[in-house]
């Protein structure tokens, strides 16, 4: 019997293929958790953090197999069936998406009751009381019990999810990115709630997150994963002050700060490789600034670098403590240009969707001057994306006017064909999801050639190559299909497509929010360079104030279809005048634990 709640040694997750060709997704993960202790597992997509968490419950997706020593609450899980009695009662899982985690056809109260002992379920009165008590613990009123999940907001659903996960009072709670699908202000509330309940109950807690700042503020210890391997594990305070693996340091540096604008974001080149591509060496070697032959000679050993602090960097002893490099502060952005150089002027724009209770946009004014970078910030439902889509002509506004490059109109539908074609060469858009914004079965080169041709530009192989090089790709990428590209590469292709007509205004709709933080930094740098070199204006739609700080000169804050504050970015973020802006600022994750108190 060990005193540990969770004891994992040598965990491996693999996907058995036909005729013995296995793929390994996770290997060499050790993890130990004492009662009441909290651990954050941090990594980018493909790091294996979620699979590690799922292995603790033996709930891997179909077709995956976990191996190694996995012991939870004193039970060795050598077979997934052995984990079943532990579910809910010893170890519980909170999942990422509150919109899909709850049974859509069952009332909240009934779903909570499903996890209760039979005696409570059968007794109507006790069941009602128990459900009300559980709802109260997560800050919901008893009436919520009679609702269906579809009638609740995302934050409320995630609270119900927490209550449901904890209904059998588990000793360990595993939370897999519990706030990624939520708005920033809701994220803070939910994190606060989880931390409070964890403290009150003295539960052990494993949190999966891609955000080091969230990890630091939530947990006592942090484990950094990369390409299915463990790179660094240690106490939060030590890693925060002095990361002992170059990847951890790079991850910290790539996170854009909200309080100052940097000349450029330091980001490691490339993207996260698959586990099997780098199984025989340090997985980070190809992107590391400190790489030598030692790093590629073989898999590095785990070195003890402090009390309870290990690192998988072979050179960490000679490198010494890694300084955190925040990058150089940029010169304050140029003063806001005058209205007479206006490229885009939106006046009193409104948009009501058929059947919706409130308008998505309500009398919004917006100005973008030539060569200017403007941010459009808000949470979901603020109307920021609707506004952007009205500007490029993907939605038809129901009120107001748009003035673009000297031509005023109330909607793109009013423009005649030639005029619309000309103006589409003036404004272009980059979408959020790089996985769905490219034709899946057309090669990258063909897609780009299509765009060049449609604008009457030369569209030979060399022109496509030039476009690809402009966004930091190679001419060889032209022959590939989107499926062969990483998320960052796809987003670069999407940007190249938008640049085909050499637009004067580039509208980016959450264009970096689906990307990993290191890739996000690369794309933000690329956009900054393009704006500079091509003398383009940028309208950047985002929910992330830190991104706004890095990418824009001026900013509009939207809420519920209205603009609540506008001004120069530094002014608005340094001294917000509207309480909502302040609320958004407070909600940006910070590394200190006080952020949540």
């Amino acid at each position, binding site marked *: 019997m060990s005193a540990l709640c969770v004891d994992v040694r040598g965990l491996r997750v693999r996907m058995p293929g036909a005729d013995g060709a296995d793929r390994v997704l996770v290997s060499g993960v050790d993890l130990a958790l004492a009662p009441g202790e909290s651990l954050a597992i941090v990594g980018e997509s493909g790091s294996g953090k979620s699979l590690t968490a799922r292995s603790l*419950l033996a*709930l891997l997706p*179909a077709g995956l197999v976990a191996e190694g020593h996995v012991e939870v609450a004193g039970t060795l899980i050598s077979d997934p069936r052995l984990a079943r009695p532990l579910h*809910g009662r010893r170890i519980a*899982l909170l999942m990422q*998406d509150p919109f899909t985690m709850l*049974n*859509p056809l069952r009332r909240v109260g009934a779903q909570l009751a499903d996890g209760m002992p039979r005696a409570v379920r059968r007794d109507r009165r006790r069941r009602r009381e128990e459900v009300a008590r559980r709802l109260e613990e997560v800050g919901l009123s008893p009436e919520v019990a009679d609702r*269906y999940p579809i009638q609740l907001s995302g934050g409320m659903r995630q609270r119900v999810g927490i209550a449901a996960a904890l209904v059998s009072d588990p000793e360990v709670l595993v939370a897999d990115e519990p706030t990624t699908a939520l708005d920033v202000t809701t994220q803070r509330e939910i994190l606060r709630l989880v931390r409070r309940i964890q403290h009150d109950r003295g539960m052990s807690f494993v949190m999966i997150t891609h955000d080091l700042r969230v990890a630091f503020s939530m947990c006592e210890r942090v484990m950094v994963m990369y390409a299915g391997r463990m790179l660094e594990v240690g106490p939060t305070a030590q890693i925060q002050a002095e990361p002992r693996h170059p990847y951890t340091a790079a991850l910290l540096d790539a996170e854009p700060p909200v309080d100052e604008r940097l000349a450029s974001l330091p980001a490691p080149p490339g993207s996260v490789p698959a586990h099997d591509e780098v199984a025989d060496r340090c997985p980070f070697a190809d992107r590391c600034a400190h790489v030598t032959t030692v790093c590629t000679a073989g898999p590095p050993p785990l070195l003890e670098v402090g009390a309870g602090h290990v690192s998988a960097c072979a050179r960490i002893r000679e490198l010494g403590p890694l300084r955190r490099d925040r990058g150089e502060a940029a010169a304050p952005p140029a003063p806001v240009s005058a209205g007479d150089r206006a490229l885009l002027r939106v006046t009193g724009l409104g948009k009501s969707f058929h059947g919706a209770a409130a308008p998505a946009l309500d009398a919004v004014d917006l100005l973008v001057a030539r060569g200017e970078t403007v941010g459009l910030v808000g949470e979901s439902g603020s109307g920021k994306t609707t506004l952007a889509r009205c500007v490029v002509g993907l939605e038809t506004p129901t009120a107001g006017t748009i003035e673009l490059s000297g031509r005023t109109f109330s909607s793109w539908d009013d423009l005649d064909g030639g005029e619309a074609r000309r103006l589409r060469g003036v404004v272009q858009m980059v979408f959020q999801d790089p996985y769905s914004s490219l034709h899946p079965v057309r090669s990258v080169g063909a897609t780009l050639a299509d765009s060049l041709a449609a604008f009457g530009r030369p569209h030979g192989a060399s022109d496509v190559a030039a476009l690809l090089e402009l966004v930091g790709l190679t001419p060889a990428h032209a022959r590939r299909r989107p499926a062969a590209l990483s998320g960052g590469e796809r987003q670069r292709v999407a940007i190249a497509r938008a640049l085909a007509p050499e637009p004067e205004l580039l509208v980016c709709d959450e264009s970096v929010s689906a990307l990993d933080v290191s890739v996000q930094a690369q794309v933000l740098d690329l956009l900054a360079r393009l704006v500079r070199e091509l003398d383009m204006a940028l309208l950047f739609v985002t929910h992330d104030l830190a991104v706004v700080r890095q990418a824009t000169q001026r900013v509009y804050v939207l809420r519920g279809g209205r603009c609540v504050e506008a001004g120069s970015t530094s002014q608005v973020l340094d001294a917000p005048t509207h309480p909502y802006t302040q609320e958004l600022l407070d909600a940006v994750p910070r590394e200190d634990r006080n952020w949540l108190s």
Partner: protein
Amino acid sequence: MATAWLRFLLGRLAGTAVVLLVLSFGIYCLVYLAPGSVEHTLLGNRPATEETRAAIRAQYHLDDPLLVQYWNWLAGALHGDLGTSIRSGEPVDVAISSRATLTLQLSTLGTLFALLLGIPAGIAAALRRGRAADQGIVVLSVAGLSAPPFAVGLLLLGLLAVKLGWFPVYGAGDGGLDRWWHLVLPATALAIGGAGLLVRFTRTSLVRELDQDYVVFARARGLGGVRVLRYALRNCAVPILTATGLVLTSILVGSVLVEVVFALPGLGSLLVDSVTFKDVPVVQGVALLLTILIALVNLAVDAAYAAADPRVSLVRRKR
């Protein structure tokens, strides 16, 4: 809520009325345009005087223009008079009602068989997906889906009735239990295709539901296998209902052929006999009745959606 339902019902009613009008007018046009006249079918090759022909033409108003003929029929139909059969001289409503019972019994039994066979097999396949049992069930369901009911009927007839003598060969039996006994083989023939369809819908939707987050979450909370399956099945209700509607309508129509195979005196054999005889009033009557039945099935399926899925009714209530 109540008014929304009323509006929905009225809309459906109007839609069905339009369909019935189009269908009945279409049939009239067909007969009017088709080669071969009614009196020729009636008289066959017997010699007839010009007077007899004129009498027939007058009796069936065959010299009136198309629109007048149709209008007369429609006016009658709206008053509940569907006319008389040219072939037998029997009033159409009597001819139909004496045969509708058998068709309805056959369709009900067939649908029941299809549900009892298809849904459990679909669930079993989904729970064993990727294994041999699943592959076997899927292959069988594809074969069932591809099998025309009359061919299956003939094969069953040959094997179980003629060769083995387990079931009666022809006819509808003497009422009561004997009637149902006579309907077992034809109903099975009808059910095979429907069962194949139900397997497909049930398996696909259950496989999809079992992969959903809420199922994983329910398992992570320690809910037992049976309750997790109930969760998932409840969410499959809409596709399974859709399939059931399709099965019901296809069985109603398929019964036409199966009745011919088993020599059952139902609506189907009535229709086939009347079509070749150009017995317009009967054809009209049967076609309209089957169309109305199908409209009723679709209405019932739509109403069942709202009962099965609160999201459907919630959306409607919001409007």
